[in-house]
């Protein structure tokens, strides 16, 4: 065999393999693209069943997995009612450019509804506005964009910072030394929560911020970050933390090093709630709020309502739940993994109220 033919063989084998993958993709694409249930389910009088897609910046974190599950459950309900024809999830895996491509692809494929959990608060604006101009109902939830042309469903992140920082300031009696545990620098959610917290701390000149730590919203990097900040400032009397994994990391460190338990603000991260419930009898105290997973369900319901011609407010601010020493037992789930986000489901009447306002 000559070198040329051998090379040609290798090349054709590669082509064949790729063609096969591509072909099988196409087949799969066709089957998912023609929703079998939709034609049977929708009566001629009802509005057309919707083609719904969700583009999210990450799918791997447990919060996202829980959100996906909640969303899929609600999609199943809406499918049974003939309101949704098909549903698809797109994961940008942290790449905002990829997310732009996803939304672009959904416009090309004539989706009726695009749900977006945004990777950047500004970068998706042009493509989302383009989708709106193409007559698509675009609803953004959780991590919000700045565009006012799409429907946005979220909580007030600045208020999150204010709420928890105020509790801490009260708990400390207006004086003390704290470590601030923030999310990654340059990320809107993190900047906004800290903005709210700073507003409060400015009112208390006797509260000294010994260290302002940035880390991923993940247990391992947060634990490292807290441990080094704490070793430099072992005399702190409190911790302002703006994420559950960050709070858990701080509390775990204090417990492991057998140090005095100071008040730490938190989030509905089950690992933190469990530890809190366990240490409550030793006098540990906290407040936690939540970015509820049902934001996705409210977003979907808002899209369905808007598609049916109902007026929906363009900004839907969902109240922040409050978890305290008193109602902690209603939230904490001792039998569930640390990496879950227990939350009480939102009643339909509350969703209706938020959409009708």
């Amino acid at each position, binding site marked *: 065999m000559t*070198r040329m033919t*051998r*090379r040609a063989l*290798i*090349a054709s*084998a*590669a*082509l064949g*393999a*790729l*063609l096969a*993958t*591509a*072909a099988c*993709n*196409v087949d*799969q*694409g066709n089957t*998912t*693209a023609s929703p079998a249930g939709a034609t049977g389910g929708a009566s001629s009088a009802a509005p057309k069943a919707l083609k719904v897609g969700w583009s999210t910046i990450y*799918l791997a974190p447990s919060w996202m997995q829980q959100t996906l599950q909640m969303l899929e459950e609600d999609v199943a309900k809406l499918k049974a009612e003939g309101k949704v024809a098909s549903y*698809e*999830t*797109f*994961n940008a*895996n*942290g*790449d*905002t*450019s*990829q997310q*732009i*491509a*996803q939304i*672009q*692809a959904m416009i*090309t*494929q004539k989706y009726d509804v695009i749900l977006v959990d945004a*990777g*950047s*608060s*500004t*970068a*998706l*604006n*042009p*493509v989302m506005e*383009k989708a709106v101009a193409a007559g698509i109902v675009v609803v953004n939830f959780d991590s919000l964009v*700045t565009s006012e042309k799409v429907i946005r469903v979220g909580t007030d992140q600045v208020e999150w910072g204010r709420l928890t920082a105020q509790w801490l300031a009260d708990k400390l009696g207006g004086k003390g030394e704290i470590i601030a545990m923030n999310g*990654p*620098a*340059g*990320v*809107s959610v993190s*900047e906004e929560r800290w903005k709210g917290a700073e507003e409060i701390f400015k009112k208390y000149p006797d509260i000294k911020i010994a260290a302002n730590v940035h880390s991923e919203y993940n247990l391992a990097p947060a634990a490292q970050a807290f441990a080094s900040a704490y070793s430099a400032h072992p005399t702190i009397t409190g911790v302002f933390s703006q994420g559950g994994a960050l709070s858990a990391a701080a509390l775990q460190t204090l417990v492991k090093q057998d140090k005095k338990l100071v008040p730490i603000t938190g989030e509905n991260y089950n690992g933190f709630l469990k530890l809190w419930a366990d240490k409550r009898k030793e006098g540990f105290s906290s407040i936690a709020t939540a970015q509820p997973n049902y934001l996705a369900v409210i977003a979907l319901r808002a899209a369905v309502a808007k598609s049916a011609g109902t007026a929906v407010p363009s900004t839907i601010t969902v109240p922040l739940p409050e978890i305290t020493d008193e109602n902690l037992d209603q939230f904490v789930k001792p039998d569930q993994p640390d990496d879950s986000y227990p939350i009480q489901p939102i009643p339909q009447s509350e969703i209706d109220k938020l959409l009708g306002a």
Partner: protein
Amino acid sequence: MRNRLDLLGLCALLAMVLVVYQRLDPTLLHPSTITILSAQFLPLILAAAGQTIVMLTGGIDLSLGAVLSLGMAVFVIYPPDAPGGVVAAMALALAVTVLAGAANGVLVAYAGLPPIIVTLAASFLWGGVTLIVLPQPGGHVPEGLVRAYNLGWHGLALPAIAIGVALGLWKLVKTTHFGLALYAAGGNEHGAYANGIDTRRVKIYAYGLAGLFTGLAGIGLAIQTGSGDPTIGVPYTLNSIAVAVLGGISFFGGVGQMRGTLLGALLLGLLTNLLLFTGISTFYQMILQGVVLIVAVAVKTLATRKAVA
């Protein structure tokens, strides 16, 4: 001869992807679709061009994503009513990214540090500087420019033209003394040095030129998104390496064509879009992307090895 075969193989792959794409999106060849796709691919193509130049010297640029974000940040914070407007903003952004690139080059050439270490350190450095320049997403890009870029300007696909101009620029650079010296120094540094090529200066120029392409990619991304985002560039580091490798650029320097990188970028971009159209589960999409990349590189390596043996 071998180079030509590689490019032909890439062209064949690309043609096949295009045929499948056309089946799923019949508007593929409409001007508006070409505008959309080129707007989407421009940042990746330019970033990969920058990475290619560094790889031709035998180096690798892990700071590319950070420098891209930095260029983007400088571009969007320049006040729109300041003298020179958007042109001055571009010039300033490019000056910054060229200097950032050249700084890598100086450390690699004169301190003799491995490129992977220098550029890794630079990625933290410029990542931090970017957050000082632009602490959170925002900034200003003229709206008319955003619209013209994304939707076309008098029917012209501006991003496609920009890609053409950038590659034309590279073609010019390649014919100069520097262009020849770059391949020579990348292929055999000692040989090139013995033949009177100032390999240190070549490296500094090469990293600086890579900074220029990276800066252009950042500006493109800013215009595409109508804003700046200090953390958006990170995935471009690895994507640009993947594209360059797919395009046949050797890790060991001196081997590869910019045309190959362009084809690689188009291939990876179109393939990603294709997977979006098929509606298969999102985790399988990632697996498929990985498999395609490995298969493409493995086949190429195999073919090359046989040719050498």
